[in-house]
């Protein structure tokens, strides 16, 4: 970056530092006597666990780290040697392979869990995953059962009540393990930090409404979103988003963005292919594609339509958050979200990256393609690979499809509008 820019690169660099420090704390947890809870990203209730002094670990984040650092393939093969099918989730196999290799990955050595909190929010594989870990580690297992958010404008009160009652039960389990009592003031303090970080994160997400967009809401968002999912509720997380906001504001001032010339604005549906992340991005960059909104950046939580954690209603807002993560939404809500994105972010197209590993994400995406391309008239590209397993990434095939799609889109743009048929 030229020296005239003061804040460029902050979002990426600070994120790396924060995650590195977090992994270090996790590695040291056995030495420092800090209890460790494993939980999942979607609808996680990390603020409650941190209030009891738990350090939290997210196996999905470990899996994506292994993916991007290209160690996932070997871990997956190891799990397959242990009997796991080639057709089950690559994240799970990555984790089983990792755990069977002394829990040592590119991020250091991971501690064993004192508590497994399976926040089952829209992914049944979460349950199967932690059932396997509970057997492997003999650790205490708590299943936080989060009902699926079905159609309708509002959450169903009975769903929220149900989650809140379970949070009370979870608090008792946490108290038993940590030796600390539930301190609602501590929870409130974290929820206030969470709220502040969410406010700033939404500002970044909304910045992509500008033309050109200063931010890629998929390829860059996957880095920018890490702190809000793994460190939400901490002061350092708020500090991170303040810095990241400065970077985005500076980009807006100077009209710079993720691609040198923004030619196509797309909404992206689906997770990235982590082991081939860079190559995948390049396939779009060469066409001047900027993802102006994405659904994957909402897997942990959806704030861009106004929802925030609320310190005044600690348990209720934790429950609301748990219910409202992307894959815990019914397809009607997911479709509405994409429609809204396409409109509000002035998208030229929808790109669906369908991954075999994650059926919660994928099953029904073909129906989404039908809906957008045939009913809504929004050009839609559908490509397939995987989020964890490098064996499913066929670059030549993807390139062909992506090139053909944007070529057609460009052609359509340049072609003069067809004259109206004569009456």
């Amino acid at each position: 970056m030229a020296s005239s820019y003061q804040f460029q690169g902050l979002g990426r660099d600070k994120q790396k530092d924060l995650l590195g420090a977090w992994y270090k704390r996790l590695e040291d947890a056995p030495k420092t006597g800090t209890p460790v809870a494993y939980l999942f990203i979607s609808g996680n209730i990390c603020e409650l666990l941190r209030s009891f002094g738990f350090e939290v670990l997210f196996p999905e984040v470990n899996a994506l780290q292994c993916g991007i650092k290209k160690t996932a393939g070997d871990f997956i093969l190891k799990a397959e040697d242990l009997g796991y099918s080639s057709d089950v989730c690559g994240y799970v196999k990555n984790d089983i392979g990792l755990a069977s290799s002394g829990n040592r990955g590119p991020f250091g050595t991971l501690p064993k869990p004192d508590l497994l909190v399976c926040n089952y929010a829209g992914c049944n594989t979460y349950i199967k995953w932690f059932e396997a870990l509970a057997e492997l580690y003999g650790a205490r297992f708590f299943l936080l059962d989060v009902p699926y958010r079905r159609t309708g404008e509002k959450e169903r009160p009975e769903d929220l009540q149900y989650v809140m009652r379970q949070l009370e039960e979870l608090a008792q389990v946490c108290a038993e393990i940590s030796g600390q009592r539930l301190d609602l003031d501590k929870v409130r303090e974290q929820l206030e930090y969470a709220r502040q970080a969410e406010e700033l994160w939404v500002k970044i997400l909304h910045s992509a409404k500008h033309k050109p967009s200063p931010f890629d809401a998929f390829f860059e968002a996957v880095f920018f979103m890490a702190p809000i999912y793994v460190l939400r509720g901490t002061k350092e997380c708020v500090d991170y988003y303040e810095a990241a906001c400065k970077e985005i504001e500076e980009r807006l001032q100077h009209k710079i963005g993720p691609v040198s010339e923004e030619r196509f604005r797309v909404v992206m549906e689906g997770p990235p292919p982590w082991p081939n992340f860079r190559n995948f991005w390049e396939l779009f960059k060469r066409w001047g594609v900027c993802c102006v909104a994405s659904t994957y950046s909402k897997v942990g939580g959806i704030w861009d339509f106004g929802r925030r954690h609320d310190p005044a209603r600690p348990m209720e807002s934790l429950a609301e958050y748990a219910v409202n993560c992307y894959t815990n939404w019914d397809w009607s809500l997911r479709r509405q979200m994409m429609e809204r994105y396409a409109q509000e972010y002035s998208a030229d197209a929808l790109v669906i990256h369908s991954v075999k590993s994650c059926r919660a994400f994928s099953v029904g995406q073909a129906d989404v393609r039908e809906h957008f391309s045939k009913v809504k008239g929004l050009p839609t590209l559908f490509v397939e690979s995987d989020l964890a397993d490098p064996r499913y990434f066929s670059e030549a095939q993807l390139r062909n499809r992506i090139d053909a799609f944007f070529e057609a889109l460009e052609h359509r743009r340049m072609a003069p509008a067809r004259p109206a048929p004569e009456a």
Partner: protein
Amino acid sequence: MGSGSHRFWEQARRWEEVIAHCREVAFDTGFPTVRAWKQETGGKAVGSFPVYTPQELIAASGSLPVTLYGGHGQLEIDHADSRIQSFVCSIARSTLELGLAKYLDWLDGFVVPSICDVARNLSGVWRHNFANGFLFYLHLPQNVDSPAAKTYYRGELERLRAGLAELTGRAIADASLSSAIQTFNRNRTLLEEFRARRAANPEQWPSSHVYVLAAMGNVLPREEHNALLERALELGEAQRRPKRDAVRVVLRGAFCEQPPLELLDVLEDAGCAVVDDDFHIGGRFFLAPLEGNSDPLDALAEAYLHQTVLTPVNNPGRRSRSADLLTRCKEQAIQGVVFASPKFCEPALYDSVLLRKALEHAGLPVLEFEYEEKMTVFESVRMQAETFVESILFFS
């Protein structure tokens, strides 16, 4: 088809006759028994995806519960391919195909329990493609030992009851539900009776025969299914079949999507006497009869949480799937375990790894393979099964 002709068992004189008829009707994608029932009664037919749907409620609403088990290998997946990708189990794709290709024009409603990611997402695809029908997504609690789960699930059942009442235009009285529970209790008792007789004398009660009898429950009112089963018990007892060398096996993995019937024939031919299985578990998932007289809804909720067959799609809570399987193996003098998992069925594929470990630890041999609805070549399974049987007969 009028009621006279579909009560074929009343005139049947031989066991084979009943079985042959069941084979013909149970997997007919034209759903003749369902159409006949609707024509006769004017009632609604409410489908459900397999496993843990409380069909007692559907029956109590005066509707016919029909379990949708996909296309039984008879459909080309054409329309459904444009809605659901190919790396998904056959049953989800072919059930959707049944709907899109208009095989289900008789269907008045569909209940989808939250058994897996595929079922959950299928509910949304279904709603999108069949916008005017009644669709109920049922959240089955997974933290079965929590007191909150009981309250929540009872609420879910209340909501299903209200939805069905709206569909049929008449409220579901507790008395109707109690009566349906008694009919279903009788049905489960009869199915268990077949299983018990088969376990005691596998030659007399071939699994493929017991299988088709159970399958009839998916497309008949339970009262009629009970009548069929009672008649079949009499006829089955009277038949004589030759003794043969076979090993006693338990089969797991087929709790939702069903294998092609030929697969069972192949296993039996190879010398596997399947004396315990999870076929059609959706029709018999309570472990004990329900006491449904005082508060029938409560009985359904309680039984789901604490008296339910363990499958890969319910968290066992304090119970243990491997302990449960090992106990069954011991009680039934099982010599080997067959994991037959539907292709792409993640819950079954995850569980088989953990269960296999427990079985190997206990010294029980395991045979594992995958199947698909449209599977037509069984030679590889036959060879694996023969080797498995021989290794038990000659080396155990």
